[in-house]
């Protein structure tokens, strides 16, 4: 039985990954903002076979409480094997362009809060010499595009941060998994017209689960995004700047 902490446990992808853990009979500690949604998710995971489900209300932007929550999870589950950080928002790019305050808010949610959590976790796991830290980032972090570069910057910065932490913790037997989904059919992308590139949260959630168990370093979900993004990164800047991707 594994012991898993999930931050942003009511997000569509995290929920599907949590279902995989539940089906395997693991113990889960769920953290999210909305108590009503948290209860619905916790009941679902219990019914699906999780050996234990605890939940805790927290806003990931409440940095001061991070230390407490990690301590609490570790104490209640009597240990911690895996932490999945899955919270996030899709910023309104136009609003961010118009206002730094808006941009700053989005960077706090999508970048700094992850840095705060991982800083705690890295030290903790480094001491123990074991554990897996998985974070859901995005293919949007692979290159800044005019349509959503604030989100892209937050996710890309997170990926760079994780790459450093991964190299630091490799000696301590701690895995750092950077999961980069492409378009996923979730409430976050409700306003975007669905096309063949969209994946279901079930498929992506299962992919996250497999990546965590295999302790992969960087995973694109679904797999084809690795090659799509390789191509996107390859486009020379003088051409790229004329696109409206």
């Amino acid at each position, binding site marked *: 039985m594994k012991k898993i902490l999930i931050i942003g446990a009511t997000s569509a992808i995290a929920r599907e990954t949590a279902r995989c853990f539940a089906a395997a009979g693991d113990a889960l500690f769920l953290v999210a903002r909305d108590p009503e949604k948290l209860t619905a998710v916790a009941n*679902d995971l219990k019914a699906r076979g999780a050996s234990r489900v605890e939940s805790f209300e927290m806003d990931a932007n409440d940095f001061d409480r991070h230390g407490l929550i990690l301590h609490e999870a570790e104490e209640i589950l009597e240990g911690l094997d895996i932490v999945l950080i899955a919270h996030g928002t899709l910023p309104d790019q136009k609003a961010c362009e118009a206002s730094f305050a808006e941009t700053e808010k989005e960077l706090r949610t999508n970048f700094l809060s992850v840095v705060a959590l991982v800083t705690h976790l890295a030290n903790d796991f480094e001491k123990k010499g074991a554990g897996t830290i998985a974070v859901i980032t995005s293919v949007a972090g692979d290159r800044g595009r005019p349509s959503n570069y604030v989100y892209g910057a937050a996710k890309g910065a997170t990926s760079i941060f994780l790459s450093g932490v991964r190299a630091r913790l490799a000696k301590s037997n701690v895995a750092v998994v950077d999961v980069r989904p492409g378009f996923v059919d979730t409430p976050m992308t409700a306003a*975007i017209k669905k096309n063949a590139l969209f994946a279901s949260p079930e498929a992506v959630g299962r992919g996250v689960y497999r990546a965590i168990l295999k302790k992969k370093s960087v995973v694109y979900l679904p797999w084809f995004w690795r090659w799509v993004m390789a191509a996107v990164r390859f486009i020379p800047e003088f051409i790229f700047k004329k696109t409206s991707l």
Partner: protein
Amino acid sequence: MTEAFESFESWGRFPKVRQDVFRPGWAADPIPFEKFSSVLPYGQGRSYGDSCLNDGGTLIVTDRLNRLASFDAEAGVLRCEAGATLEDILGVIVPRGWFLPVSPGTQFVSVGGAVANDIHGKNHHKAGTFGRFVRRFELLRSSGERLVCSPAENADLFGATIGGLGLTGLMTWVEFALKKIPGPHIDVETLPFHSLEDFFRLSDAGDRDFEYTVAWFDGLSSPEKFRGLFYRGNHSAPPDRVKAPSMNLRFAVPFNCPSALLNRWTLGAFNRLYYDWNAHKPARHSVPYRPFFYPLDTVGRWNRVYGRRGFFQYQCVVPKGEPGRRPVAAVLQEVAKSGQGSFLSVLKLFGDRASPGLLSFPRPGVTLAMDFANRGQKTFDLLERLDGLVRDAGGAVYPAKDARMSAASFQSFFPRWREFAKFVDPKFSSGFWRRVTL
């Protein structure tokens, strides 16, 4: 929030309609009914015709309401949000020794859809419909009221919602009773038969000792060369040496097939192959439950074989009648005469367990289901003639599979429809409902 979506269609892919989509993420989410002219719940879109479509209105798509609320593995009671699929539920309950009380021919339907169509399965002769196992559900009405309905509370809405085609409000969660099983396998026997009377004899004999019975027959074969396979089975534990489950083989039809591909010769060859393949299997063997209940689920998007124009499934129930004067024989004769038969067709005897559903389709007699490619007017004409035969026999046609029956036919098949109409929520409607209540 309204979702950006190209289109939602029904399984038969006819008719093509335009509608907006509202997709709640949580069962407790309020729904802004005042913003919509009319709404209709839409689960997995496995109804064949327009009972799951709302041309010019809004669909409330329930696929995200798929959480389980509780599973009592001692008593065998499951409570879940209405958008949960039977496939998902089976994956949770079967390993713990439970099964669906009633299972349709595909596992890719939602629980809400199962209740709203009061679905039946191969055990109808023993168990009746799905609605008989529903204990409670919550119904969200357009007034914003959330009503818990059961045989004891709001009993009239309970009865109207079971088989009520999603018209009485939005079911948010459903609680229903499961069935204890010894294991995930089915002991199945396959018996070839060569006439309609043989089917009735096999049914009368098999329905006593077997939980599940159904017959597949070649709808293209002439009465002299009638070819059918009678399946009967019971739950069992897996045999000691388990073969790898054949369900892993999954592929999907990648595009719309040209309709010329489906003609009397290709279909005839397919049916003959299917018959020969299965008639020569060992008479008795043990199979995992999925290939037994859901053989077509291995082929994703199989509805595309009928091409862009879509297809009709025609399912009726008629009284058994007497040998030599079987109403179902008259229906089959009419189909044979038209030369529009199709893939494998299904026959099954319904039992007499009454459903709590006011508008429930199953009733004692024999049910027949056949597919017809949409070949325009001549297909409509044939199905209209079949409706006439079913009406004369005092039977009914299944709304979940219908895209064209007339208002007069519906009202004669479902004489309690006016009583039902009183419970229809004023904001809820469907293409089907507008058509049959003209």
